[in-house]
Structures are given as C-alpha cells and as structure tokens.
C-alpha cells in the first residue's frame, strides 16, 4: 500500500462509548455568558410565557468541546479517507470555499435584505447561473431547491403547470426507469403524477421497445439520469427524447450523475427540458453528514416563467429579483441554500475552462481504470464501458460462500475505506456500486482494488464468521431490529430499552 494515510491507515479508533451530552450535564454548569442587560427592566405579562427554565444540558465549555471533538474522531469523512460511493460523487471539497463562505456579508446577510444592499449575493447567484446553464445546455435557473429531491419536485411541478396551462391536464404518467434513484418515483408521486416504470435492457440501458409501449397520450414526461445508475451512457438518448417529445411529454434530467459528462456533452443538447444539479456532488460542496445540499433547477427558455420565484436578473442598475409570471411558487422560505451555491461557484471559478472541460473525462478515467482493475477480482454487472461509476456483483460469492455485498462493504470499513454503495441499483443482485471521482490518485484506486482482493480471500476462509466484520472500529455491526421495535429515538427512552431487552 502506497497511498499513505489515505487508504492504508485506520482513521477511526475504538474504545469506550461516548456518553451523551445529557449524561455529562451537572446542575449549575454553563458555557454561555451574555452581556448585562443595558435597558431598564419592564415587567412582562403574557399568558404564553413559562415560569420555569427550559430543559437543556448544563455543561462547561471545555466539556462541550471535548465531547464533540471526541465524536468527530468517531466519524469517517472525505478529509479522512476514500469513499468509493456510487451515485454520491464524494470528491474532495476545496478548503478555500470555507474561507469564502465565511466572509462577513456572505455568511451574515438576513434573507429579507433588499436587493439594493445585497448586490454581491445576487451577483454570486447570477454568475453561478451562467456557469450552470452553460454546463448543462439550458437557459435559466433557480437556486431555491435545497437538495436534489426538491429539485426533482420543482421540475415535476413545472411539467404539471406547463401541461395544465396548455390544456393537457390529462397527461398524468411520469415514466421512470426501474433502475432510477428512489427520489424519482417519490417526487413524481408527491407532484400528483402516476409513476410508470420502464424496464432496463440486457445491456443495462432503457429498454426502448418497452418505452414505446408505455408512451401514449397520457404521458406527461420521463425522468432519466444519463449516465444511468448503472454508470452507462444511454446511447439512444436522442431516440428516447424524441419518443417523449413526439407524444407531447417533457423530459427531466436527474443530475445525480452529472459529474460524468461535465465538459463532454450536455443534457440540453440531448433534448432534456429540465435539469437539476446536485451542487454537493458535481460541484464539490461538502455533504455535511447528509446535508445541506443544493439542487438548482435549470430549464429551457420556454419554461422560464414557470420557475419558482424570485430569480435573479441583471439590468442596467445592477442585479434585481424577478418573479416569473406563471411560477409554480416558492420551494424554499427564501433563496435556497445560498452558501452552498456560493461554495459551488468558488469551485467552478477555481476550475475554470481548463478544469471544467476535463472534469467529466477525469472522473470517467478514474472509474474506467478502477473498473478494469476490479473486474479481475469480481465480475461487473454489465459488459459495457462505464462512465463515472460502475456496478460489480458478488452474486457468485453469495452462492458459493454466502458472502453478500453487505459483508464485503463491512469488511472494507475495517481497512480504512468507506463501503461502495450496495444493493443499488435495485435491479442488480448483490450489487456493489463504485464511484471513485476524479480527485483520487491511481495509488488509492490500486489500494482499494488490492484490499478488495485480500478481503474477498479472507472472507472465503473456513472459520470466518461474516457477522464479526467489521472488527476494528468503535462499534461492530448494529442490531437494527431493536430500535425499530422499541423506537429508542431520544435519551428519555433509554430505560425503556434496558427494560425491554
């Protein structure tokens, strides 16, 4: 192993469980101090005011800092090690963006501040919109959706309103591949559409014949990611978009896999009408342990007036807000996750033309290389050139040695790697989905493959108990049944758990 500290060391330490902040609490301790009240005291009488103090922990500042720092040590992260996590694009998050996001009025503007006083913030959104529509081949964008799923819902509500205004309310079917991300059907349902599933052909792409049979006068649109969730480029994308458009439907691009094609080709040129981008994937903003993200939606010009408003426009006096005339309405209380958008802009500025033109190419290079090396250890799901990610399967190992994708993922954790995405896409048995991203070195990719080879050999050993993996981490495999049965979801329930076990 040569990649030093990245994949070859164990970043997390074991040891005793960390108490909760509540268990560290002692009456009378406190971290907070406030200035003395500098106005005369008035008696306040309001029936909504309480007579007692709120229930919160009482801890010293040092205890607080030690507690949360110890918890930080029990957490894997991009800054700690390699996430070959398919569909998640866990690339390096430039530290410089932290600096910019912390600048005074970027971080501290009240969202109701008039445009006159927030020209810098509006410029950020306008500049990012220009990058985004160029990269995706669209015309206008909104930054309100705070995540990809919200972007999907935005897009679907735009389709719905567009169809209604054009007297096509009968169109109620949204077609979604059986390999799609779970958010696609969930969003379509939330927007009030019927979800129609199209199958995947033997090569791993949309089954065109099936698609033709499903499309009719009720088709409102299609949601698709390209490359798809198998990591394959939908080679018949022009035919697919023609089939939908000929039937009066719109086509929606799920931007989860956009990283593969940045600088290579553009959804707008493939016929997509609406695109969401995950700034926390493709444009390197940190995932924050599950969020915040940002899911801006870009559309072709004919859909501009349907966007959630207000959107930023540039005029002779500078930047201003504009409310689209047929807007679906707000998707967020204010302007979406502004600081996430800002970080994405920082990343795009740093990359510039040189970096953005080759972004997709290097993402694909790393994935193609890793797939080539890993295919010598376990078989790939499809015999096609992968884009930014690929799917391998251990279904044979499951048959021969009862080794499941889950076991492989858990054993990898022990070796300092995050698990690849497992059991997704749902249509592939015992799937392991790898997405290395362009920011990992070839040494780290080699280390991952080598480690995978070693653990698969190890797991096939005679006296191996698969359930024991991982062995070297703060905790072992969790019992997932206890909380579902006893629902211990706050510390007040702790004793309930003790009693019911």
């Amino acid at each position, binding site marked *: 192993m040569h990649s030093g500290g990245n994949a070859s060391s164990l970043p997390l330490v074991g040891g005793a469980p960390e108490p909760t902040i509540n268990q560290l609490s002692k009456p009378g301790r406190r971290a907070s101090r406030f200035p003395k009240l500098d106005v005369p005291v008035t008696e306040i009488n309001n029936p909504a005011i309480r007579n007692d103090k709120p229930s919160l922990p009482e801890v010293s500042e040092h205890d607080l800092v030690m507690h949360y720092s110890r918890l930080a040590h029990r957490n894997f992260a991009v800054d700690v090690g390699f996430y070959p996590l398919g569909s998640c694009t866990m690339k390096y998050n430039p530290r410089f963006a932290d600096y910019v996001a912390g600048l005074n009025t970027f971080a501290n503007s009240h969202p109701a501040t008039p445009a006159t006083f927030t020209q810098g913030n509006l410029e950020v959104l306008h500049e990012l919109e220009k990058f985004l529509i160029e990269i995706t081949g669209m015309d206008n964008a909104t930054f309100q959706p705070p995540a990809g799923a919200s972007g999907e819902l935005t897009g679907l509500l735009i389709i719905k309103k567009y169809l209604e205004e054009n007297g096509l309310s009968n169109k109620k079917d949204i077609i979604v591949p059986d390999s799609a991300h779970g*958010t696609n059907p969930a969003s379509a349902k939330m927007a009030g559409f019927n979800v129609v599933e199209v199958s995947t052909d033997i090569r791993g792409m949309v089954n065109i014949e099936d698609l033709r049979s499903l499309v009719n006068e009720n088709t409102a649109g299609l949601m698709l990611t390209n490359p798809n969730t198998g990591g394959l480029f939908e080679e018949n994308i022009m035919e697919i978009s023609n089939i939908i458009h000929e039937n009066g439907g719109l086509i929606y691009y799920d931007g989860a896999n956009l990283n593969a094609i940045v600088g290579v080709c553009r959804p707008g040129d493939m016929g997509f009408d609406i695109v969401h981008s995950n700034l926390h994937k493709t444009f390197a903003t940190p995932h924050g342990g599950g969020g915040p993200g940002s899911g801006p939606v870009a559309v072709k010009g004919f859909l501009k007036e349907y966007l959630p408003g207000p959107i930023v426009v540039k005029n002779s006096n500078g930047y201003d807000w504009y409310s689209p005339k047929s807007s679906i309405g707000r998707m967020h209380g204010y302007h979406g996750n502004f600081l996430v958008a800002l970080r994405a802009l920082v990343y795009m500025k740093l990359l*510039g033309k040189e970096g953005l033109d080759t972004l997709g190419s290097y993402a694909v290079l790393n994935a193609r290389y890793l797939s080539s090396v890993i295919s010598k250890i376990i078989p790939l799901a499809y015999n096609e050139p992968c884009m930014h990610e690929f799917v391998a399967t251990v279904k044979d190992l499951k048959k021969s040695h009862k080794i499941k994708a889950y076991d492989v993922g858990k054993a990898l954790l022990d070796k300092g790697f995050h698990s690849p995405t497992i059991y997704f896409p749902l249509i592939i048995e015992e799937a392991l989905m790898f997405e290395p991203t362009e920011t990992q070195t070839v040494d780290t990719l080699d280390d991952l493959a080598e480690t995978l080879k070693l653990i698969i050999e190890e797991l096939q050993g005679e006296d191996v108990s698969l359930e024991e993996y991982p062995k070297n981490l703060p905790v072992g495999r969790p019992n997932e049944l206890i909380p579902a049965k006893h629902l211990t*979801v706050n510390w007040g329930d702790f004793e309930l758990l003790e009693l019911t076990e």
Partner: protein
Amino acid sequence: MFVPHSEIDLKKMFEELSISSLDDLFTHIPATLKLNDGLNVPPTLSELESISHFESVESKNTQNLICFAGGGHYDVYLPHTVKTLTMRPEFMTSYTPYQAEISQGILQILFEYQSLICDLTDMELANASLYDGATSVAEAISVAINKTKRNGVVVSNGFNPNTKEVVNTLVDRSKFDIKYVDLIDYMFPEDYIFTEEDAAFVVSLPHYEGSAQDLTTIVKNAKAVGVITICYIDPSMMGILKTPGSMGFDIVVAEGQSMGSPLSFGGPTVGWFATKKELARLVPGRIIGETRDSNHTKTYVMTLRAREQDIRREKASSNICTNQTLNAVGSTIHLSWLGPQGLYEIGYQAIQKASYMKQQLLDHDINISNPNNSLREFIVQTSKPAEDVIIEMGNKGFLAGIKYSDNEILVAVTEKRTKSEIDKYITSLQEVDNA
C-alpha cells in the same frame, strides 16, 4: 485542478485501458452530442486570484447593516465554539451515516439533536432535520393529511408570506382546501370552529406579527374533532415561552436558523420537526435510533427506514433524501452551549430590549400597530411607503425590518442589539420618516 494525476500516472492508466487519450474514453457517445470546443466559461483562477475576486464581490454587499429584521431568521449571537466545532471536517465532509460503524460521531450528535428538540418542545420523536422552516410546515401538513385522510387545512394567517407560498406550492390545492384564518387583534380567534373535514391546524408561536398567546384551548377544540395540531415555533424564544407539548400540540416544526446557523442569506438553515410516537411511521426524513452492536455496545443507527424514498420509492412518506444535517449539528452544539440559562437569556433580553424600543418609539410619536401583546417582534407604522423607509434606513446603516404592508414594517429585536443601536435606530427613523 484537484485532479492528482502526473504524466506517469496517466501513462499507467491509459495502458491499463489500452487508450491513448481522454477522448478515447467516449467513443460510445454519439459524435453529434460531444462538445468539440469545450465549454464557454472563464479561464481558471488560482486561489490567490480568487481571494481578491470573491472579496471584491462580497464588498458589493452593503457592509455591517445593523439587523432589526426577523420573520423567522434572527440575528442571534453565534459563538465561535459552536461555529468551529460544527465546521470540523469530520462532520462537514462526511456522507450520510448509512455505515453506522464509521459514523457514530454524526449519528450520536443527531440522536442528541432529536433528544434536545424533544426536551425543548415536550415531544417524543424528532427527525434528523428538514430543509427549513417553510418546507417543514408543508411536510407537517402532509403528515396530518395522511393520518386523517381529510381534505381541509386550517392555517393561521400569522405566518411569513413566504411560508404560506411554500405551503401553497407543496400542498396540492386541487385536492386540499387550505383555509387561511385571519388573526383578530393579532391573536388567533379562541372561538374558531373546527370541523371533521379538517386534517390540520397550523399556527405560529409567536405569530409572525410578534404576538403570542396560550393556544391550549384552541388546540383542545381542534383535537376534539380529530384535527392534527401543528405548532411552528421560534426556537430562540423557547427559553421563555411555554412548550407546544404542554399546550397539547401533535407536531412541532421550526425554522432552526437561530440555533446554530448564521443568517446565511436564508440558507443553509434547518427545519426542525418533532411529534408524538403515534405518528412515527408517517414522519418524513431520517430518524436516528439507539441500539446495541454485536458486542452489546451502545450504537446509533438510522431507523424506521421503511418510510424512506430509497426503500419505499413512490410509497415513501416524503421524497426527502439530502437534508440539513450539518445545520442540525449546529443546533445541537449551540443548544448545549446555551444550556437552560443561556436560552432563557436570549429570549428574556430580546423581549426586554424590544419593550424598551417600543416605549422609546411611542415616546417619539412613532406608532406601533401591536404595542401591547407583542414580545420581541412588532409592527411599526410609517408615513412614507414602508419600502422607501427600509431603503433610506439602509443608507443609514440599519436593516430596518421587513415590509409588512404599504405603511408598516415588522421589526425584530434580538439579545444582540444594544441600547445605543436602538436609540440610533429611532433617531434615524425620525429623520427618514418625517420628511
């Protein structure tokens, strides 16, 4: 940029793949789709060049406006301890904690977050965050609709108009009837009659206008006919106001910005969502539970996963996937830093300073629409158009508040405001609005 490969690395990779250029990776993509000249974007900037670029863009914002605006987002003091701990890269750059064994840090903090919110609101189960306050209201309405299978939604008009707009976007108005009920004298009418058609009752504590009332009787009346009651709270007032749980509410939601997130031009912040266990299976988003590992060690995991979109797909309780975890981490650490005394002080000082400000405004013959039953936020009347007053006040260094009507401004006071800032605000307002 950030691509690590040397020429030697590339040679090794190209050899493995039997290719001679990056273009060879894409022979399967139709030629008509390929970008031959690349993207029309500006050239790369070094970090050094970027510093001056972004500092110059930032300087186009008016600097150091003293903030008297609220409406859900408040200029509460955010301690450095909270900021720096929240921004630790182990939290900030980690992924969703699906792999519990290497995610105990985030999982335990989210468990603490859920617990803190339950304690603070008198609820039993909180989720691990939603996008923001406005979308949390819409998600709560959706839970009530799913639970009751009814079509009516009773919403107090005492909400930020943006929140109402989000509700109107996300609740399908062709299927559900949203009835906005006007406040009377800035209070939700005690004698409002709910019907068995109503799925949800949604009200804000305090109201958008800054007034607050004990909602116990109204909640009781709503629940008597099977309505799910939803309370939207201002977390920074929870040190001083009665809990929604004690008033009988079924669901509590909040804009959590004031606990742990800077104002951030409105995002990222965090939507709080808490409820009773009987609604557990309808709750949107992630929930963290406590369990044991194979060695019987205390372990945290994501639980009740069968509600979520990656498993239930179109039958999920919500489409939410990415949430606002890092802001929830901020809320956890901020609440722990504050403790009972600190959270009380934030509310108490804000109300005292607002009382002082209201008295001073009245003494200077400036009218307040709701001087008596408001707490830290209230409505100031202007003779000039409110919009113009806000702009002119901005030129004098104050974010005067949020336009409430043509001649009214909603003003918020936090514990951060000083007597001197308040006095100067009033002098400036007199100058601006007397002309």
